[in-house]
Protein backbone atom coordinates (compact mmCIF):
# COMPACT_ATOMS: atom_id res chain seq x y z
CA UNK A 1 0.00 0.00 0.00
CA UNK A 2 2.30 2.70 -1.31
CA UNK A 3 1.31 5.93 -2.95
CA UNK A 4 2.94 8.57 -5.12
CA UNK A 5 1.30 11.98 -4.67
CA UNK A 6 2.57 15.00 -6.57
CA UNK A 7 1.74 18.43 -7.91
CA UNK A 8 3.91 19.25 -10.93
CA UNK A 9 4.26 21.57 -13.91
CA UNK A 10 4.31 18.78 -16.46
CA UNK A 11 2.59 15.42 -16.13
CA UNK A 12 4.54 12.26 -16.94
CA UNK A 13 1.90 9.57 -17.42
CA UNK A 14 4.55 6.88 -17.61
CA UNK A 15 5.88 7.82 -14.18
CA UNK A 16 2.50 7.08 -12.59
CA UNK A 17 2.08 3.79 -14.43
CA UNK A 18 5.62 2.57 -13.70
CA UNK A 19 5.22 3.49 -10.03
CA UNK A 20 2.13 1.36 -9.52
CA UNK A 21 3.05 -1.64 -11.70
CA UNK A 22 4.55 -4.60 -9.90
CA UNK A 23 4.88 -8.34 -10.52
CA UNK A 24 2.37 -8.90 -7.71
CA UNK A 25 -0.43 -6.93 -9.34
CA UNK A 26 -2.54 -8.17 -12.19
CA UNK A 27 -4.02 -4.95 -13.46
CA UNK A 28 -3.52 -1.21 -13.58
CA UNK A 29 -6.33 1.23 -14.28
CA UNK A 30 -5.44 4.82 -15.09
CA UNK A 31 -7.43 7.97 -15.58
CA UNK A 32 -5.79 10.76 -17.57
CA UNK A 33 -7.57 14.10 -17.68
CA UNK A 34 -6.70 16.38 -20.59
CA UNK A 35 -7.64 19.92 -21.56
CA UNK A 36 -10.66 19.97 -23.89
CA UNK A 37 -10.56 22.40 -26.79
CA UNK A 38 -14.09 23.63 -26.14
CA UNK A 39 -16.65 24.12 -23.37
CA UNK A 40 -20.29 24.01 -24.45
CA UNK A 41 -19.17 24.63 -28.02
CA UNK A 42 -17.06 27.69 -27.18
CA UNK A 43 -13.37 27.30 -28.16
CA UNK A 44 -10.99 27.16 -25.18
CA UNK A 45 -7.57 28.75 -25.78
CA UNK A 46 -5.91 27.49 -22.59
CA UNK A 47 -6.47 26.69 -18.94
CA UNK A 48 -4.65 28.03 -15.93
CA UNK A 49 -4.46 25.83 -12.81
CA UNK A 50 -3.69 27.04 -9.32
CA UNK A 51 -3.53 25.04 -6.08
CA UNK A 52 -3.26 25.47 -2.33
CA UNK A 53 -0.40 23.06 -2.64
CA UNK A 54 0.30 21.77 0.89
CA UNK A 55 -3.41 21.21 1.53
CA UNK A 56 -3.94 19.71 -1.94
CA UNK A 57 -1.20 17.17 -1.20
CA UNK A 58 -2.83 16.30 2.13
CA UNK A 59 -6.25 15.84 0.47
CA UNK A 60 -4.74 13.69 -2.29
CA UNK A 61 -3.07 11.54 0.37
CA UNK A 62 -6.45 11.14 2.09
CA UNK A 63 -7.96 9.91 -1.17
CA UNK A 64 -5.25 7.28 -1.56
CA UNK A 65 -5.73 6.24 2.07
CA UNK A 66 -9.50 5.94 1.65
CA UNK A 67 -9.03 3.87 -1.50
CA UNK A 68 -6.68 1.51 0.34
CA UNK A 69 -9.31 1.14 3.07
CA UNK A 70 -12.19 0.44 0.67
CA UNK A 71 -10.62 -1.77 -1.97
CA UNK A 72 -7.94 -4.40 -2.30
CA UNK A 73 -5.51 -2.18 -4.17
CA UNK A 74 -1.73 -2.24 -3.93
CA UNK A 75 -0.40 1.07 -5.19
CA UNK A 76 -1.87 4.42 -6.16
CA UNK A 77 -0.32 7.39 -7.97
CA UNK A 78 -2.10 10.74 -8.12
CA UNK A 79 -0.32 13.50 -10.05
CA UNK A 80 -1.92 16.87 -10.81
CA UNK A 81 -0.48 19.63 -12.97
CA UNK A 82 -0.61 23.35 -12.21
CA UNK A 83 0.14 26.39 -14.35
CA UNK A 84 -0.81 26.98 -17.97
CA UNK A 85 -2.17 24.06 -20.00
CA UNK A 86 -3.14 24.01 -23.67
CA UNK A 87 -5.89 21.91 -25.27
CA UNK A 88 -4.81 18.27 -25.46
CA UNK A 89 -2.29 18.61 -22.62
CA UNK A 90 -2.55 16.37 -19.57
CA UNK A 91 -3.85 17.85 -16.35
CA UNK A 92 -4.18 14.91 -14.02
CA UNK A 93 -3.20 11.27 -13.99
CA UNK A 94 -4.35 8.67 -11.49
CA UNK A 95 -3.03 5.10 -11.65
CA UNK A 96 -4.19 2.25 -9.44
CA UNK A 97 -2.75 -1.28 -9.32
CA UNK A 98 -4.68 -4.17 -7.84
CA UNK A 99 -4.62 -7.95 -7.87
CA UNK A 100 -8.06 -7.91 -9.55
CA UNK A 101 -9.27 -5.40 -12.09
CA UNK A 102 -12.68 -4.65 -10.55
CA UNK A 103 -11.04 -3.10 -7.49
CA UNK A 104 -8.66 -1.08 -9.67
CA UNK A 105 -11.54 0.35 -11.75
CA UNK A 106 -13.60 1.23 -8.65
CA UNK A 107 -10.71 2.82 -6.78
CA UNK A 108 -9.56 4.83 -9.80
CA UNK A 109 -13.05 6.21 -10.45
CA UNK A 110 -13.46 6.98 -6.73
CA UNK A 111 -10.13 8.81 -6.73
CA UNK A 112 -10.91 11.13 -9.65
CA UNK A 113 -14.50 11.75 -8.46
CA UNK A 114 -13.27 12.62 -4.96
CA UNK A 115 -10.33 14.69 -6.21
CA UNK A 116 -12.77 16.97 -8.01
CA UNK A 117 -14.77 17.40 -4.80
CA UNK A 118 -12.10 17.79 -2.14
CA UNK A 119 -8.68 18.78 -3.51
CA UNK A 120 -8.06 22.56 -3.42
CA UNK A 121 -7.20 23.14 -7.07
CA UNK A 122 -8.86 25.71 -9.33
CA UNK A 123 -8.87 26.28 -13.04
CA UNK A 124 -9.48 29.35 -15.11
CA UNK A 125 -10.71 28.87 -18.69
CA UNK A 126 -9.45 31.32 -21.30
CA UNK A 127 -11.71 32.08 -24.24
CA UNK A 128 -11.33 34.55 -27.11
CA UNK A 129 -13.39 37.06 -25.14
CA UNK A 130 -12.07 36.63 -21.62
CA UNK A 131 -11.46 34.23 -18.78
CA UNK A 132 -13.65 32.57 -16.15
CA UNK A 133 -12.98 30.56 -13.01
CA UNK A 134 -14.67 27.23 -13.71
CA UNK A 135 -17.72 26.34 -11.57
CA UNK A 136 -17.29 29.41 -9.37
CA UNK A 137 -20.84 30.67 -9.79
CA UNK A 138 -24.14 28.74 -9.67
Amino acid at each position, binding site marked *: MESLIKIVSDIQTEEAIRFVESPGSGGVVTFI*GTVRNQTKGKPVLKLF*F*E*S*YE*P*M*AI*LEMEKIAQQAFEQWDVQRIAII*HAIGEKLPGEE*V*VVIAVAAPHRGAAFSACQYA*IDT*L*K*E*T*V*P*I*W*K*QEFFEDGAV*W*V*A*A*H*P
Partner: protein
Amino acid sequence: MKIMFFGIAKELAGGATLEITEKPGTVGQFREWLIRQYPAMRELRKVMIAVNKTYATDEQTIADDDEIAVIPPLSGG
Protein backbone atom coordinates in the same frame (compact mmCIF):
# COMPACT_ATOMS: atom_id res chain seq x y z
CA MET B 1 -3.79 36.26 11.70
CA LYS B 2 -3.03 35.31 8.10
CA ILE B 3 -5.83 34.70 5.61
CA MET B 4 -5.09 33.03 2.24
CA PHE B 5 -7.28 33.45 -0.83
CA PHE B 6 -7.31 31.25 -3.94
CA GLY B 7 -8.88 31.24 -7.39
CA ILE B 8 -11.73 33.65 -7.81
CA ALA B 9 -11.63 34.49 -4.09
CA LYS B 10 -8.14 35.90 -4.62
CA GLU B 11 -9.52 38.18 -7.34
CA LEU B 12 -12.45 39.27 -5.20
CA ALA B 13 -10.20 39.96 -2.21
CA GLY B 14 -7.66 41.77 -4.38
CA GLY B 15 -4.75 39.64 -3.18
CA ALA B 16 -3.49 36.23 -2.17
CA THR B 17 -2.96 36.94 1.51
CA LEU B 18 -4.27 39.34 4.12
CA GLU B 19 -3.20 40.00 7.69
CA ILE B 20 -6.06 40.78 10.06
CA THR B 21 -5.79 41.86 13.67
CA GLU B 22 -9.37 41.29 14.87
CA LYS B 23 -10.01 37.75 16.10
CA PRO B 24 -12.92 36.15 14.28
CA GLY B 25 -13.80 33.69 17.12
CA THR B 26 -15.39 30.89 15.13
CA VAL B 27 -15.25 29.88 11.48
CA GLY B 28 -18.92 30.93 11.17
CA GLN B 29 -18.08 34.41 12.49
CA PHE B 30 -15.15 34.58 10.08
CA ARG B 31 -17.56 33.80 7.21
CA GLU B 32 -19.80 36.69 8.29
CA TRP B 33 -16.81 39.02 8.38
CA LEU B 34 -15.74 37.76 4.94
CA ILE B 35 -19.09 38.54 3.34
CA ARG B 36 -19.17 42.00 4.94
CA GLN B 37 -15.69 42.74 3.54
CA TYR B 38 -16.28 41.20 0.10
CA PRO B 39 -20.02 41.06 -0.64
CA ALA B 40 -19.35 39.50 -4.08
CA MET B 41 -18.28 36.28 -2.33
CA ARG B 42 -21.93 35.72 -1.53
CA GLU B 43 -22.47 35.09 -5.24
CA LEU B 44 -20.11 32.12 -5.31
CA ARG B 45 -21.60 28.65 -5.58
CA LYS B 46 -19.93 27.50 -2.36
CA VAL B 47 -17.13 28.76 -0.15
CA MET B 48 -15.32 26.46 2.23
CA ILE B 49 -12.96 27.56 4.95
CA ALA B 50 -9.85 25.57 5.75
CA VAL B 51 -8.11 25.93 9.09
CA ASN B 52 -4.54 24.63 9.12
CA LYS B 53 -5.05 22.87 5.79
CA THR B 54 -8.19 21.00 6.87
CA TYR B 55 -11.80 21.82 5.95
CA ALA B 56 -13.46 23.42 8.97
CA THR B 57 -17.03 23.51 10.24
CA ASP B 58 -18.70 26.80 11.14
CA GLU B 59 -18.67 25.85 14.84
CA GLN B 60 -14.91 25.46 14.96
CA THR B 61 -12.98 28.04 17.02
CA ILE B 62 -10.09 29.86 15.37
CA ALA B 63 -6.87 30.27 17.35
CA ASP B 64 -4.41 33.14 16.95
CA ASP B 65 -1.80 31.23 15.02
CA ASP B 66 -4.17 29.27 12.76
CA GLU B 67 -3.66 29.39 8.99
CA ILE B 68 -7.02 30.33 7.48
CA ALA B 69 -7.72 29.67 3.78
CA VAL B 70 -10.74 30.81 1.79
CA ILE B 71 -11.61 27.99 -0.63
CA PRO B 72 -13.94 28.96 -3.49
CA PRO B 73 -15.67 26.24 -5.58
CA LEU B 74 -13.11 23.63 -6.63
CA SER B 75 -12.39 22.83 -10.27
CA GLY B 76 -9.37 20.55 -10.31
CA GLY B 77 -9.07 17.47 -12.45
